[in-house]
Structures are given as structure tokens and as C-alpha cells.
């Protein structure tokens, strides 16, 4: 196999390439000491006097502990109020960046050493930035046949389009690799006139909606195919931390970290992967904080977009996430918290699975359950009689579920190209996250299976 040019900058979109930040204006930087003589008094940059910030003290109560955010500190693991509430670097605060690099090193051992991280305003913002970095108008993105469809907005904004790939629902192993190879080999005849794909967007772990985890061997195969075809992989991985495949609650950090699904990053010898992480699922979505792992040469073009589009990530958010990690005792404390969250999702998954599998519709083979390997969704495939109209029956199912007092997401609403999936859309996504407790969770799943039974009864009697 010949390796392609390792110069990743060829992948940068024309838009991102053309974007330049006035070097003069940014050269002096944020309080960097000047190399000539005394540190200059800042009469230049319009940073407000920090003594006028009305937040004089900030105290945070966590579940078992609390901490105070210092007004000013020399401790490099903490962000103080003076720094955190001021204008700040678009890359993110150094201490938080350090944590993100450590997270990546410990969990993913990237296959190359040309990567770095940059803080974003959350997962959706990370996705938008990755698309902006790589895509021009008219470009093509490969995408899973069912996925987190709001990201299509970012692709459309750019004027790019998506082409769907298939899942291997039989083996529940993630992307159908043969189909991927088939699409690329027969591109001209399948999609005449369409630009050959530049990017594969995938949620490899605890995929939304399927809950599938693409295993390491398959990741390696998909990676190789992409490298051969000069396709960049954007791996969006908000769910990996919610590992569900191990059949027990965790206690030990090392054991937990070892269980986490691998990433494309860990096979990325040729710098063909952008990884998007978020603090939403383990900490809280409203923190609007995440990070991108990218080749070093991508950090600046990504940041140039930040400077124009979002400024810098929220100060209170960076203070709270960073200082919470520090207060929990560093990354190990943070992983312990992740374990706690993971264990709760795992026990919910267990309860929901039991409810589903014990239902009479499961026993009658009216449905097949996809046991998720990570994430917060369980999916169910409905065994409609051969030859039935899938879309019609799914809309009947929605009526039934509403009547039984439960809402679910039919897969068709998660289809980027609804025409592509309309004859094969007999799936629903159920979340284990929203119910307030185990009692309500069980009740919700019971209502769902009654709705399914109800539907099949109608089918039989008609």
C-alpha cells in the first residue's frame, strides 16, 4: 500500500484557507511579555478593568464536595475569576487544554504524534468547525444512513451534500464495510456527476440512533479504505464514555478506561482523522464546552474560524469544568465521575432490556432488540409482515405509542436521505436517559411494548 501525501493542509477548504486574521492586530497577544525592555502597560487592547467585574466570589457545590473559585491564583491547574471572566485566548485556557491532551493520551494513545487539541463551544460547534475546515461548496460527505440529522444544517450551510452509507443490521457491528467499498468503487455509475467524497462523518461508538460500536478491526478496515481513497474521517464521539458492553458496574478507573471503545484516532497513522469530543454527556450539555483533536496544522485554521464566529469559549464554563476536574483530584477524579454516570446508564439499560425482552411481543418475535454497546439509546427492529408498507406502519405505531402515553423516535426522522431508507425504516429509537427514575423507565418501556402489541393485533385482525 502506498501512503498518500501526509500533508494534511491540502484538505483545508478554500474558505478556511482564505480566512486570515490580521497578523498585526494579533501579534502582541494576550499579555505576552514583549521581548524589548519592560513589559508594556496595556493602553492598547480593550480589555475592561477586572475590578469592575461584578462576580467577586464564586462557589460551586458538587454532589459530595464544594470548592471556591479564587479571585486570583498562581496555581496553574485552576482558572481564577480575574482570568476566567476576562477576554481570553480562542484556543481555550491552557490548563483545560492540558487536561484534554491528557484525556486523549490516556484513553486513545493516538497512532501519530502530530495531533493537538483546541477547545470548542460544545459538540455541535465542534462539528460545524470540522465541516468548515474541510468542506467547500459542492463537496460530498459520506454519512451513516441514520444519524444525528441536525448536523445536516452545517453541511447545507456550506452548500455541500451528503451520500448515505448502510449499517450492517444483521451483525449489529456498525457500518457495512462491503457497502462502503462498493459505493466508492462504483461512484461514477451510482452518483454520476457528483464530486467524489472528501469526508466520512461517523459516530463510531454508541452510534445515534443504533447504539452500535464499530470494533477495532472494522475501524482499521474502514480507515484503510478511507486513506486509500483520500477521504478524511470526522469521528464524532460524544457517547464513548457511556460504555455499556461490560456486564457489570465499574469501580476501578483503569478497568473502566480499558473497557472504553477504541477510536479512529488510535489507528490514525496518516493524520486522516478529526475527533470531536464534548463534555455534554458526562458533565452537562449546557456547559457548551468540548474539544477537537486535530492535526497540529489544523489548529490554526480552526481557531481563525473561532475568532470570527464564536470568539472564545465561555469563561464561566471553562472555569467550572476545569476547576471541577481539579477539585475532583485531577483526571482520575473526573474518570470516577464518568464511571458513576456510566454505571447509572448501564443499570438503566439493564432494566430496560429486561422489560423489553420479557414482553410478550418479544416472545412472539414481533420485535428484535439491539442491545447498545455504548450511549443512551436502545433500538428496536419491528418484524412487520413481508410486503407491508413500512412508512405507513411506522406512522400507525407513532399513533399507538401516543395513545399508550409514550413518545419514541422512528428512525425515518433520523434519516439524512429519507428516500434511501423508506423501505427499510422499521426501527425506533428509545432513550434510557430521560425518565426520572427506574420506575418511570420501566413503565415507559412497558407502555411501548403494549403499543407494539396493540399494533400487531390490529394487523392480524385486518
Amino acid at each position, binding site marked *: 500500500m502506498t501512503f498518500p501525501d501526509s500533508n494534511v493542509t491540502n484538505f483545508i477548504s478554500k474558505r478556511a484557507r482564505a480566512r486570515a486574521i*490580521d497578523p498585526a492586530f494579533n501579534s502582541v497577544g494576550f499579555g505576552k511579555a514583549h521581548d524589548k525592555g519592560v513589559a508594556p502597560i496595556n493602553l492598547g487592547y480593550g480589555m475592561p478593568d477586572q475590578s469592575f467585574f*461584578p462576580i467577586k466570589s464564586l462557589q460551586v457545590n458538587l454532589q459530595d464536595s464544594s470548592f471556591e473559585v479564587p479571585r486570583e491564583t498562581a496555581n496553574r491547574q485552576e482558572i481564577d475569576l480575574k482570568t476566567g471572566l476576562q477576554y481570553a485566548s480562542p484556543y481555550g485556557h491552557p490548563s483545560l487544554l492540558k487536561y484534554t491532551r491528557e484525556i486523549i493520551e490516556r484513553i486513545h494513545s493516538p497512532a501519530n504524534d502530530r495531533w493537538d487539541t483546541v477547545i470548542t463551544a460544545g459538540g455541535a460547534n465542534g462539528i460545524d468547525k470540522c465541516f468548515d475546515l474541510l468542506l467547500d461548496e459542492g463537496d460530498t460527505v459520506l454519512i451513516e444512513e441514520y444519524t444525528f440529522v441536525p448536523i445536516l444544517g452545517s453541511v447545507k450551510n456550506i452548500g455541500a451534500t451528503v451520500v448515505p452509507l448502510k449499517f450492517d443490521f444483521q451483525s449489529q457491528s456498525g457500518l457495512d464495510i462491503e457497502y462502503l467499498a462498493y459505493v466508492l468503487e462504483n461512484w461514477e455509475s451510482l452518483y454520476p456527476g457528483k464530486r467524489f467524497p472528501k469526508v466520512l462523518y461517523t459516530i463510531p461508538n454508541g452510534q445515534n440512533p443504533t447504539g452500535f460500536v464499530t470494533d477495532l478491526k472494522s475501524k482499521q478496515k474502514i480507515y484503510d479504505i478511507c486513506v486509500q481513497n483520500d477521504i478524511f474521517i470526522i469521528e464524532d464521539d460524544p457517547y464513548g464514555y457511556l460504555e455499556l458492553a461490560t456486564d457489570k458496574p465499574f469501580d476501578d478507573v483503569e478497568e473502566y478506561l480499558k473497557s472504553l471503545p477504541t477510536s479512529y484516532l488510535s489507528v490514525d497513522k496518516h493524520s486522516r482523522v478529526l475527533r470531536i469530543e464534548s463534555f455534554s454527556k458526562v458533565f452537562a450539555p449546557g456547559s457548551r464546552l468540548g474539544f477537537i483533536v486535530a492535526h497540529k496544522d489544523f489548529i490554526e485554521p480552526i481557531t481563525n474560524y473561532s475568532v470570527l464566529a464564536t470568539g472564545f469559549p465561555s469563561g464561566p464554563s471553562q472555569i467550572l469544568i476545569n476547576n471541577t476536574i481539579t477539585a475532583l483530584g485531577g483526571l482520575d477524579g473526573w474518570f470516577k465521575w464518568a464511571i458513576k454516570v456510566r454505571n447509572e446508564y448501564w443499570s438503566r439499560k439493564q432494566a430496560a432490556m429486561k422489560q423489553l425482552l420479557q414482553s410478550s411481543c418479544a416472545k412472539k418475535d414481533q420485535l428484535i432488540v439491539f442491545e447498545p454497546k455504548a450511549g443512551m439509546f436502545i433500538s428496536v427492529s419491528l418484524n412487520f409482515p413481508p410486503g407491508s408498507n413500512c412508512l405507513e406502519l411506522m406512522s400507525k405505531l407513532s399513533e399507538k405509542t401516543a395513545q399508550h402515553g409514550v413518545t419514541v423516535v422512528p428512525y425515518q426522522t433520523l434519516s439524512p436521505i429519507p428516500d434511501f431508507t423508506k423501505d427499510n425504516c422499521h426501527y425506533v429509537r428509545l432513550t434510557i436517559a*430521560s425518565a426520572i427514575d427506574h420506575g418511570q423507565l420501566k413503565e415507559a418501556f412497558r407502555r411501548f411494548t403494549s403499543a407494539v402489541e396493540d399494533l400487531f393485533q390490529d394487523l392480524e385482525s385486518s
Partner: protein
Amino acid sequence: MAPAKDLTHFLSEESKRRQPSPLKTAFKYFGQPDLIFLGGGLPLSDYFPFNKITVESPAPPFENGIGYAPKEGEAITKTEVLKQKIEDFDVPLSRSLQYGHTGGQPEFLKFVKEHTELFHKPPYDDWDVLATVGNTQAWDAVLRTFCNEGDSILVEQYTFPSSMEAAKSQAVKFIPIPVDAEGILPEKLDEQLAKLEKSQLPKLLYTIPTGHNPTGSSLNKERKQAIYKLSQKYDFLIIEDEPYYFLQMETYTPDASKRDNAPKGKEEFVNALEPSFLSMDVDGRVLRLDSLSKVLAPGTRIGWIVGQPALLMKFFRLHEVSIQNPCGFSSSIVTGLLSRWGNDGYLNWLMGLRAEYTIKRDVAIDAIAASFPKEIIEYVPPVAGMFFTVFIDAARHPKFSTEFDSDPLKVENAIFESSMKKGALMIPGSWFEIAHSFPEKALSNEVDSKIFFRGTYAAVPLDQLKLGLERFGSALKEEFGL
């Protein structure tokens, strides 16, 4: 009052393509009683690790000034935000830290709407507000919502470079407008617009009306009214970027003994503010970008847009796929604090801010008067904002026509270097010139040997401010051999 005019003909191709996400439309069922939600992917709020956030702040009316940190036992405003609401006006952590509320948290929007009504009273019915993560993001969203490649926009001759970079990256063309010490000259603008073909007319005007960055100028009511009339005549939108609106100050009185620093009444304070473009916007063609960065703290990354709903909806669609919403911690803390102060207490804070900035400006201008070489400089004491401008006649530099080839930019650079060596940083004016970032659009100005430096009195304490300006003044004297 009438509703806003239909101005959807200004929308860009990109914003026309933006449609609601099919997944998110399912959220309308959320919160319906006795319906269990197995639909969305909202994580468990019980498992957000944050139980409580407590913030202490000075309490209105801020008798010791807004910079004063209250000591033990003195009055404070204590903002406590928990997972569940304590006060009706709070944004509980279980909501702010969850997904949702792309347009901003309702309690935040309520406060901001009251605030807008208090200060601007927009003269049409259906005006609304939408949360942003600050004016940088809001301006980028404006460009994406209205401008196609090749569209023209009006900008002040000197303006904030980052704003222009954002526009440049959208391949937008600039029409620079001449300004004087009080900002845009409406007659010149009219002359310029009259010369354009219909197809060349701009989609919008981008302006920093108050405490302009970098010039420090402020547009008065008469000029604003004239400009608004032009926006109706030639049909363009007005984007008023107003981070410095509440940094309006008393006029500068050179004689310190005659300065009137007595506290003013609330009504007097409100009436003394320059009316905004929004306050005269009968059509709904103004989008006002407001920010808390200069008023509370930049790191909060929270701001808002005021405008008509049909246009704001397009921002909403963009936010859904980009920023989603302002950070939850900020939403809870800022809303909790502002609501505890109330709009009345917030008014006290803004009055305090005016007093502090007036003092800072006075110290800066006093220091310039005392330590800069009068022979070669000109300046207008600003009445708003964080910035002042010192104009320098480069031709008076002894090496101007020899070593510097009569090039004012070389003099500018020499001053920058020597002032940095002395330990004072002011920003060279050329960094702000439209023509500097966009050489192809260079203004055909007559050769002018005037250069300027932008300074700010905002960033450092008074003693440092004075010292910094003394250093800069001595660098100037040395350079010019005075």
C-alpha cells in the same frame, strides 16, 4: 404602532436554505403531562455533577463605586442557583445545563426585553430578542444570514478589524464611509449612495455608533435620524454593534476643579444617553447587537440581538446547528445576578460604570495634556467607550523626508517600537484602516501625513494608566526630538 415591514428580501441564499430540523420538531411534545419521553437524547440531569453555584457581588446602589469588593458583613447580592428553581426569575441548573432553549433561557430574555423597553422603546409592535454568545458571534451570524458572496456592505472608514475579517471571509465587498470626529457624515453617505447603480446598493450598514472602536467617536441623534432616513430611501438594514453603549460619559472639563462629579438621578441618567437607531426604527430594519462584555465581564460570553421576529427566526435556525445556545453556567449566573439586582439595580450599576469611566477618561486625557508634546498632536476627549485617539503629524518627525521616505507608516512604526521599548502599548491606527486589511480597496485619500494611535483607559488601574501615558509621551518627545 404597526408590526415590522417584511424585509425577508434581504436574506442570503444560505439562510433561505435553513429549515427546521425534523428531529427537533418532535420536541414540541416535551413537557406534556403523563407522556413519558423516550424520544430525545437528553442526558440525565440528576447526573450533572453541579448541585449549586453561589456567586457574591456588590449590592445596589453601589455606594462605594462598582469596583469596590464588599468586606465581611457589608451588603452583598448573593446569587444561589440550584438544580431546581428557588426564585421565579432563576434559570435552574437542571435546565440551563441541559440541551434546549436555542433562543436563550426565557428568564434571561424576559430581563433583556424589559431592559430594551426601558432604554430604547422600539417603535414597532413585534420586536423581539434572541440570545447570542456575544457580538463577535452575532455579527458573524448577521453576515451569514444576509450576505451572499459579492454583496456590498457599508462600513465606517476605520473600524474594528475582526469584524471586517469576518465579512471578508464571506467574500463581501466594502463601501467605506468617510467619518469625522463625530462619526459617519450623513451627507457624504447620501452622495456616495446616489452614485451607485441599483445593483450595487449595499444590503446593510455596519456601525459602532457609540464609543466607536477605534476612533472613540459617537453618533448624535440628528445624524442617526438622517442615516435612518437614508436606510429607508436606499433600502438597507442597519446593524448597530453597541458593546460600548453604557460607557457614555460626562463631557470632559479640562479644569479639574470645575468638574461636576455629583451623582445624577436615574431619570437624568437615562435621558442623557444618546438615542439608539433601534429607538427610531419604525420599519424593523435595525438589528441591535448588545453585549455584557464591557458592562459585566467579557468571559460571560452572553449577549443578545434585538430585531423583528421574521429575521430573528433565521438566526435561531443557524444557532440550532452551530452554537446552540449560550453557556448554561453563564445563563444561570448572569440571569440570577441581574434579576436579583432587578432592572432598577442594574440601572445603578450602569450609572456607576459611567462614573468610573468618566474618572478613567479624565485621568487619561489629563495625562496626555500634561506629558504629550502639544506641538505635534491632536485629540478629542471621547464622550463614550473605552478608547481615545491621538493624532500625530508624521511630517514633523525629523527623519520624515530622509530616512522614512515621507511615508507616515514608517513614522508610525518607529513610534510603536520606541513606545514599546519604554513600556507602553498603544495600537497603531493603520491596523484599523479598511484599506490596510484590504489593499485592493485602498481609499483614494489625498496624501495625508496624519497618523493616529488608539489607546484605552479601560484596562489598567489609574496609576498605571498615568504611568503608561507618561511613557508614551516621553517616547514621542524622543522620537520627534522635542
